[in-house]
């Protein structure tokens, strides 16, 4: 398939996800996009493995307290596409995905900052009771999102495909090893972020239990999910029993 066509398809995938991520998220995730890129480029297997690797890192990257994470769509699309096209592995895909997605994030933030213009126009439409006008602005926003992602990916792939392949093939072994190690550790960042969100001293035992279940008992994740659900119910029983008996004691002492 000629590069232009591949670039076009990748651009459409990215553009569609660019809008969808604000509407119905899930389809923009690297684990989904990876195989789709693989399908476009004729190697679903690699797409799946690369998508999984990128997903592990981006899984926990949320926009917390104003900090925008690297863009998840370009990470999945460009990371996978460049890697497959250069015949590189998941670790290299990640090494491309990260800087590319950080740049994409900056552009996205820039565009959303400019969207303040939509608000001001909407204000004047509201004054006139112009419902159709507000609707048009709203859809214009969506179109912009589609176009931004389409262009970012289409242009990057078309222009960068060979350059990136050359760079990847020129990476010396020691650097490759380092990138490989990095790709193994980077998921820890996402998990650390998740911990930061969920952290409460009282919940530490459950963190430990989850770890022990996979490391020592070697349970698959689904099993851990089931056990966690059971633990959550027990936790609820224990904490509510305490609250109920405290209330009862308070009653009798009064």
């Amino acid at each position, binding site marked *: 398939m000629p590069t232009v066509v591949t670039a076009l398809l990748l651009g459409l995938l990215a553009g569609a996800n660019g809008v969808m991520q*604000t*509407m119905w998220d*899930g*389809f923009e995730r690297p*684990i*989904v996009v990876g*195989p789709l890129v693989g399908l476009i480029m004729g190697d679903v297997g690699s797409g*799946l*493995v690369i*998508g999984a690797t990128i*997903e592990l890192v981006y899984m*926990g990257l*949320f926009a917390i307290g104003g*900090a925008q*994470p690297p863009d998840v769509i370009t990470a999945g699309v460009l990371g996978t596409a460049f890697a497959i096209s250069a015949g590189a592995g998941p670790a290299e895909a990640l090494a491309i995905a990260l800087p590319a997605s950080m740049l994409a994030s900056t552009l996205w*933030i820039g565009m*959303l900052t400019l*969207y*303040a213009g939509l*608000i001001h126009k909407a*204000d004047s439409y*509201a004054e*006139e*009771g112009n*419902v159709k006008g*507000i*609707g048009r602005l*709203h859809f214009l*926003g*969506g179109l912009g999102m589609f176009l931004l992602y389409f262009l970012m990916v289409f242009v990057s792939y078309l222009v960068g495909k060979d350059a990136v392949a050359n760079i990847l093939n020129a990476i010396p072994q*020691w650097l490759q*090893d*380092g990138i490989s*190690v*990095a790709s*193994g*550790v980077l998921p*820890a*960042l996402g*998990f*650390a972020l*998740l*911990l930061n969100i*969920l952290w409460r001293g009282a*919940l530490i035992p459950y*963190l*430990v*239990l*989850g*770890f*022990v*279940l996979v490391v*020592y008992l070697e349970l698959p*994740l689904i099993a*851990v999910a089931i*056990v*966690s*659900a059971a*633990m*959550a119910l027990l936790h609820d029983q224990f904490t509510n029993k305490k609250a109920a008996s405290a209330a009862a004691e308070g009653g009798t002492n009064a």
Partner: protein
Amino acid sequence: MPEHKVTTREMWPLFWRGFILQISWSFERMQAIGFCYVMMPVLEQVYKTKKELAARLKNHLEFFNTNPDTAYFIYGVVAAMERSKQPLGAIAAVKAGLMGPVASLGDTLVYTVPRTIALGIAVALAQQGNILGVLLFLVVYTGIKLPIRWFLLKWSYETGLGVLSKVRGSALITRVSEAASVIGIAMVGALIGSMVSLNVVWEIQSGETVLKIQEILDGIVPHLLPVAATMLLFWALRKRISMNRLILAVFVVAIAGASAGVFG
């Protein structure tokens, strides 16, 4: 406010419009245009003069931002309030007061916990070459969001303003949130133990014996280094070091460590 049975036909515009809440998102007022867009059909039906409509539209262009799935709860209450022509200020107050809690709850019950679990399992299956994990993720994740949206909308629209007092006194929300956090944090523990890899290839030679550092570490606790790395990054995040800096730091340390023959 009397409760009234809401028909699917009445709910439908709110339901589908809620899907595109964020396509005009901006930093200035975030979901404002989107929220206005969701409410527009109800407003047009209820307010027949241009002056009234304009005032209501403007009211809904005020700053608004919340979780797009649990937002449906707010659509229902506000729609019910508009139908009974509640004052502008009252509606604005309800929106302002609900935004935050609804977002927190939604973020925990959709993103932080269920999505993480579904993605974790999908990745685990994908690593074994099994693409069904991806389908499973999409089906389960969608399976959670659709009912959340529909039933929150139905409940709050039918109950109207009265739903707020029911919700405020309820300990149920805290308990559900807490339960979700238990599941979430346990899963993160599991993910740390299975999806992070960091091994030391360093060996110390002492005469004839070769000490493999990794074996020693594994003898203490398997996956000890992944845990250490995660907790180090956790600590760094607490110290407000930025995500991007930490990504760079990981690369630098990894590359340096690999070159020095420590990691591998």
